[in-house]
């Protein structure tokens, strides 16, 4: 593996990509913003970022021919990180707008109904349920930045995917891991030094893959 792995960041029109581009570049990756399935070829890892609602995001992934290539990428156990909406899209479907999503992780995206404020916006603690290299060098319970109203709820059969939880009127899953498949509900690219550390850990995992 080359010293600077090539990370494909999927662009499906969901807003700010500058932050993730700069954060990954800072921690030693080369970023390729990709807008179609073909462009995944040659990448060492894929990141699906994004905020917003599931249905328009899925429509854009479909329109750009990215849906099947992304499923194939994960099925081949290649390195993958979903961020915020990019994590939610891995589930079977979303209660937000009834969208059918990628169906890679068993469960649904549900609203944080018991939250005292909604959307859940700001810094909150990420409590790990097991050790993982993604959080190497980061204190358990460290603050990360969240901005969302919905979160993925794993089926009971898939509860072993939980890597961390966060509390906002009740605990929700804030990070998942299954082999090379990783997802976080918070925004590491907007979470200061700990966020950069997490992305550096992801880049290290990609290098080792």
């Amino acid at each position: 593996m080359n010293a600077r792995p090539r990370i494909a960041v999927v662009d499906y029109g969901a807003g700010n990509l500058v932050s993730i581009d700069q954060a990954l570049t800072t921690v030693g990756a080369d970023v390729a913003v990709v807008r179609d399935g073909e462009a995944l070829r040659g990448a060492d890892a894929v990141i699906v970022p994004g905020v917003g609602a599931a249905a328009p995001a899925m429509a854009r992934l479909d329109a750009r021919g990215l849906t099947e290539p992304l499923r194939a990428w994960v099925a081949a156990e290649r390195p993958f990180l979903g961020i915020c909406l990019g994590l939610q899209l891995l589930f079977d479907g979303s209660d937000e707008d009834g969208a059918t999503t990628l169906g890679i992780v068993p469960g649904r995206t549900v609203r944080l109904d018991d939250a005292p404020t909604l959307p859940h916006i700001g810094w909150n603690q990420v409590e790990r349920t097991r050790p993982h290299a993604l959080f190497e060098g980061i204190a358990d319970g460290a603050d990360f930045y969240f901005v969302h109203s919905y979160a993925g709820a794993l089926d009971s059969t898939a509860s072993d995917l939980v890597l961390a939880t966060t509390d906002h009127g009740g605990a929700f899953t804030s990070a998942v891991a299954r082999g090379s498949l990783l997802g976080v509900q918070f925004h590491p690219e907007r979470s200061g030094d700990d966020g950069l550390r997490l992305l550096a850990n992801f880049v290290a995992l990609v290098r080792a893959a």
Partner: protein
Amino acid sequence: MLRRRVIPCLDVADGRVVKGTRFVDLVDEGDPPELAERYANEGADELVFLDITAAPERRGTLLDIVERTARRAFIPLTVGGGVRSVSEMRDVLRAGADKVALNTAAVADPNLITRCAGRFGRQAVVVAIDARSIAPAAWEVVVKGGREATGLDAVAWAQRAADLGAGELLVTSIDRDGTGSGFDTDLLRAITSSVRVPVIASGGAAGPDDFVAAVRDGGADAVLAASIFHRRIHAIADVKAAMAAAGLPVRLVPEAVA
């Protein structure tokens, strides 16, 4: 537990940070990306840019500043001032902002809130409300930088904005802004008790105790200030220490990174 946020606000005019009293008498206070990075290192939880000139022909300057800032400060950035359409919001987000604050344009066309939320998600849409006291426990929405009254009740507009798709409200007391006489906690409480979305308090910060009052008495989720940080009258760490001492959850950042 969700932390209460401390947010430095950078009023930007023609590519520079400025601050005036009651939106006039502007004084140059520095380069936006440079100040943004300093604040991120000092423990700011988020940043707000308000483009207070917002002349259409100068939008390119703002977008350039947004991108330079996003590449230097790894904390969230909200940009407000002069955004009037979904396509203008898209440009600001693509430049590196996480949220856009709508103010005058949302009052003129409330459905803009819904269109922007539909396109980018409600978490990206902040509605900024400038309010002026008109009677005990009554506030009117003002627009165009405080120069024009609308006749709208501020609390009713806050509820409507949230219903239309705002993910957050930035509530500024025009009476207090730039005066250092403390936040209008009655205005804040009237709004925070009637909406579920997070509310950012703005206008009137003089010292750390004001931040405590905005959260404890006003129910604010986040507190914004400009001059006291730009002029180094108080450090963000001092404000957070006072909030922590008052029992409020805040994110403490090690001194070493400052």
